[in-house]
């Protein structure tokens, strides 16, 4: 039951993009087409889950035993940067088709604050390892849900007649606001 609550809460109620404002850059940047949105979601899910597992072990077996938790920020970001490189190299060798699909998005992920944000949230919520995996996966799904919905709306927006000053970023932000308003309907569910 707790796992179910974690999943519902991370996907809908506390959606990582629309309620917590993490990962806004890729949310605005790669949402022009549904297909790129799906590719980005795949890459984010992959890296987010692995990064959360690795940082969880670092926090609980290195930082806490040696009482150097103030090194959290610096160690997590280095681990994530290294991990993204590693994932890229391994994917290239092991699964070329998957690399073809996700390759262009991987370098962008190092500066995606959603990855670091979820890693830090997992630690601050005192999750055990299973809860951490469930939470990171659900967060990534929530990211994908928001991104793909948004991309679908933006594809339609291309066909609309938008006032000059509102074209581009402003209309995208207003649409995101209305989407966030819709997601607020889930508030209080958990």
């Amino acid at each position, binding site marked *: 039951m707790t796992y179910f609550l974690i999943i519902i809460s991370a996907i809908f109620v506390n959606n990582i993009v629309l309620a917590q404002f993490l990962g806004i*850059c890729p949310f605005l940047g790669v949402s022009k087409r549904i297909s790129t949105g799906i590719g980005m979601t795949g890459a984010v899910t992959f890296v987010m889950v692995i990064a959360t597992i690795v940082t969880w072990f670092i926090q609980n077996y290195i930082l806490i035993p040696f009482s150097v938790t103030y090194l959290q920020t*610096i160690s997590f970001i280095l681990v994530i940067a290294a991990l993204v490189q590693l994932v890229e190299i391994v994917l290239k060798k092991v699964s070329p088709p998957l690399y073809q699909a996700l390759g262009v998005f991987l370098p962008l992920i190092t500066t995606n604050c959603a990855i670091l944000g979820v890693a830090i949230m997992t630690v601050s919520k005192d999750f055990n390892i299973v809860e951490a995996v469930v939470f990171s996966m659900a967060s990534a799904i929530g990211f994908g849900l928001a991104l793909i919905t948004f991309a679908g709306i933006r594809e339609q927006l291309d066909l609309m007649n938008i006032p000059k*000053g509102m074209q581009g970023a402003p209309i995208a932000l207003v649409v*995101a*606001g209305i989407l966030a308003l819709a997601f607020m309907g889930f508030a209080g569910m958990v």
Partner: protein
Amino acid sequence: MNQWKNFSKGFFKENAVFTLLLGMCPTLGVTSSAINGLGMGLATTFVLIMANLVVSLVKDFIPDKVRIPAFIVIIATFVTIVEMVMQAYVPALFDALGLFIPLIVVNCVVLGRAEAFASKNNVGSSIIDGAGMGLGFTMALVMLGSIRELLGSGFLFGLPVYPEEYGMLVFVLAPGAFIALGYLIAIINRFKRA
């Protein structure tokens, strides 16, 4: 380059938020009040100036291939300093900004200036560039924070302006952040063209 131009470009011509659309996460996440926006902006400005300073000092010693990880370590160092100082001296602000303080590390504005400016220019220009960009970012955050606080709760910098029950609560919540920023950018685009 003219140092005044170098400083002032961060406010309007190359404003990180309004023109370059960088650093959107803290911009939207912490601006539920003007004070929070100001705190976040100043913290980011400090990191920007110090990171620019150090990067421009060590740029000749860092091999080209590992420069991005090296920049990230430099930035993370100053973010950790900011985190500890804020926790000690302004605990209320530290709690309000929460997760977004460690996330200054992945703020594209900071890494972007280190890569695009400090790694190519001398120490003096880099400090001025960091200060201009940081204060421009702060200005954007304070503007958005003031608008959201005023429309949402009837307060401005914590001082009552009109009765609270006339406020539109949505502007303090998540959707209001997106909508307010969208219209703010649209208005600025309008003036830029004129």
